[in-house]
């Protein structure tokens, strides 16, 4: 925090950081529930019905 003061005036606090009001907060991307498979998931072969 930087303090600025002119003679005869109340000192004001100038913050070192402020949020950028032009940036709309974005919900964080959900983490993947599991890592992407390296190979396509194999489908079971059809088994002839009895």
């Amino acid at each position: 925090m930087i303090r600025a003061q002119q003679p005869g005036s109340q000192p004001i606090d100038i913050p070192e950081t402020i949020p950028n009001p032009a940036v709309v907060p974005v919900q964080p991307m959900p983490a993947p529930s599991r890592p992407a498979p390296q190979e396509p998931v194999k489908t079971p072969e059809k088994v002839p019905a009895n």
Partner: protein
Amino acid sequence: MSYRYSLEDLLALLHSRAPTKVDAVALHRRRVEHGLLSVGLKIHCLGNGSPFSTLVEALGGAQKILDVNYYKDSRASLCLVLPPVGSARSAILLLECIEQFIGSALFSNPEIQIQACSPGRLSARRSALLAIGFYLGSDTLRRYTLGDLTTSFVAHPHDPRGRRLVLYDAEGDFDRNFDWWKGSDKHRLVEPQLPFNNGRSDLLTGSGSRLDIENINLLATLLVHAQYEGYWKELGMQFEKEMGTLLEQHLLAGLVDAPWVRTDDAENGDDDKFFAALQELVAYAFEEAVRIKERDRFFWKRRDIPARSSRGILQEVQSLLQKYRGELVKRSRLFDQGDCT
């Protein structure tokens, strides 16, 4: 980049606390997205460094992991250099894994200063555009002192870097093994290596955010491709032009002539010239932020906001970044679908 451990060692260690994210990083470590540049990170810890002690010890100890790296923020107790990864997404995930391991926040933490590293040394003018674009596009507007930008390489005998937002590398280790897109339009060629043997443009974000890492990655990609004739050269040059026009409209065009990066040129060595330009930018952005807040308080319904010729520099830079991110992704996907026209 000086680090004496492998990403595999680091991931093996982090796996116990963040298995899913670690698996995602391990799987996509070298995957480049849409031809964007690879991303390196340095974490400067301004506190006593205790949250990192277990991690550092497990990787081989401070002597091996930290002391080998002479470079750091002059206020920092340690600077942890992370191995580069193929995308901003992987870089963010890697930081999240470390957060979970050390039990302490890395993003938007005033005790943590994040340095985002991009391959390729940008020219002085393009370094200025990188820094200005980062600053105005960030989710946090910061005030700086020159002390905030002081590193152990300020007056290094061989590689003096001065006190700047953008810093060149000191010709250390460099990992070239990331895809580089070249060609243009329908003729895209993917090289398995970056087109330079060495060289980086780093940005000291301060307490950085996820958005900062994504923005710096986008900006650096556009500017590096414009400079090194990459696939995104045309888009990068168009961005430079639009950014220049935007700064002109706000009477800030002269800022890009300041020495935002310390090059070998002796005329570039004046920290005060750079800092005067940075302060002008900061003052303009803070004033604009106050104006937006006042306007939003007065016109609390968005439809009441009167039409203006300019929406203000902060919103214009957001739009510019969104436009170029969208355009890059769109063109990349069109090409992948074989429908590039």
